[in-house]
């Protein structure tokens, strides 16, 4: 959505830093799907798909697709060693029971309290929530990867979401092409910047107030 592949990969690479060996991780569509490309080769991560896969591997080579082995977005994937299949009830049981360590997803808006609005644009786009509500509410850590502003240039990090909420106060980290925010009980804290952007530029494109961490990491990959 308007971002070059390099920006998308930069955001994905930063998100990959949150993942530790042995974690169960659920990835949304879009930028989150790029995250596995940025993990260390020897790291063991169990990627979870809502449609009933734990231990999902990368896309198969062309011609090797299995129509009955697809991710939640409907695209062919593979299964890593130790992976398993289950039905939808068990798949969401894993989420609600707190067994999914991280969910990385996109969003339309995030508020300064960490409210997530990523499922509906009233009157325009009403695709349904799919599994986003459970993931947002019950995954142990919720990381949002998104453009800092929408196509019209409006900030997506806002004082209060104007779009219908997926879930209240659920987001832990926001990563955009400009900066990284941590969501705390006292609001947003800017912790990292992607140069050349500076704090003022981030403030100009962010609707809500935020505090600035004592130490700001300037990310250059």
């Amino acid at each position, binding site marked *: 959505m308007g971002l070059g592949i390099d920006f998308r990969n930069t955001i994905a690479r930063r998100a990959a830093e949150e993942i530790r060996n042995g974690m169960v991780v659920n990835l949304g569509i879009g930028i989150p799907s790029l995250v596995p490309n940025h993990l260390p080769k020897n790291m063991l991560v169990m990627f979870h798909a809502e*449609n009933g896969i734990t231990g999902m591997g990368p896309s198969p080579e062309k011609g090797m697709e299995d129509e009955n082995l697809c991710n939640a977005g409907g695209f062919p994937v593979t299964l890593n060693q130790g992976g398993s299949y289950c039905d939808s009830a068990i798949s969401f049981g894993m989420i609600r029971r707190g067994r999914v360590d991280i969910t990385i997803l996109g969003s339309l808006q995030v508020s300064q309290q960490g409210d997530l609005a990523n499922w509906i644009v009233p009157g325009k786009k009403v695709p349904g929530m799919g599994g986003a509500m459970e993931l947002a509410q019950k995954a142990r850590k919720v990381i949002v990867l998104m453009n800092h502003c929408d196509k019209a240039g409006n900030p997506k990090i806002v004082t209060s979401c104007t779009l219908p909420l997926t879930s209240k106060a659920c987001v832990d980290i926001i990563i955009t092409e400009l900066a990284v925010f941590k969501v705390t009980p006292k609001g947003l804290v800017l912790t990292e910047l992607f140069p050349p952007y500076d704090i003022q530029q981030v403030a100009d494109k962010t609707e809500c107030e935020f505090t600035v961490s004592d130490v700001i990491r300037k990310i250059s990959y």
Partner: protein
Amino acid sequence: MENPFGKITSLEKVMEAFDNGMTLMFGGFGGVGSPPALIDGILEKGIRNLTLIGNDTGFPHIGIGKLVSQERAIKVIASHIGSNPIAGKLMHEGKLEVEFSPQGILAERIRAGGVGLPAILSDIGMDNELVAKNKPHFLLGGKDYLIETALTADVSIVYAKKADPYGNLIYDKSARNTNPLVAMAGDITIAEVEEIVPLGSLNPDEIITPGVFVDHIIPSKGVNWKWAWE
């Protein structure tokens, strides 16, 4: 193949189970694991005014999406309709009622229906007007929950990899998805299967859906649509 339980039948015969205005539950996720011959059979029989219950509305030419696109449904209970723009269009035109249910809660509502429970308690989507609207609350241990009603259907249709003549089913990889849940929730459950194997040839430890839940079995010719990724 011996047919000691009389469950193995043909598409033509099993179509007697379908009527206008019925509630139809279907297995599948984005069309993966949806039964192609049964869906085509329903289309060809001209069945209309269906209430459909399942994970999503597929794609316009994939899975249950075929029925939605041809305006055979008046209501859908699903978690997602985004991959089928025709469903969204019909909803906005007022031709299709859509009840959205969070994906895992939808699965549990179907499961509850399938295992004879009237409802479940859920704390998913309580902040959301669309999810919480008109649903009774229940206070348990000082916490507030929504009462989410169980779902059953006149007929459930599922797609499996193998069945034996009793209707014991195993599924193929991620095509399992909602199928084992849907299989339990139909007053009549019809399984379309890629292969029918003799009684005793499935490993009992590996059977996912016990044949107790399956009323009819028909052979499949496999998927006859082109996937979005092809």
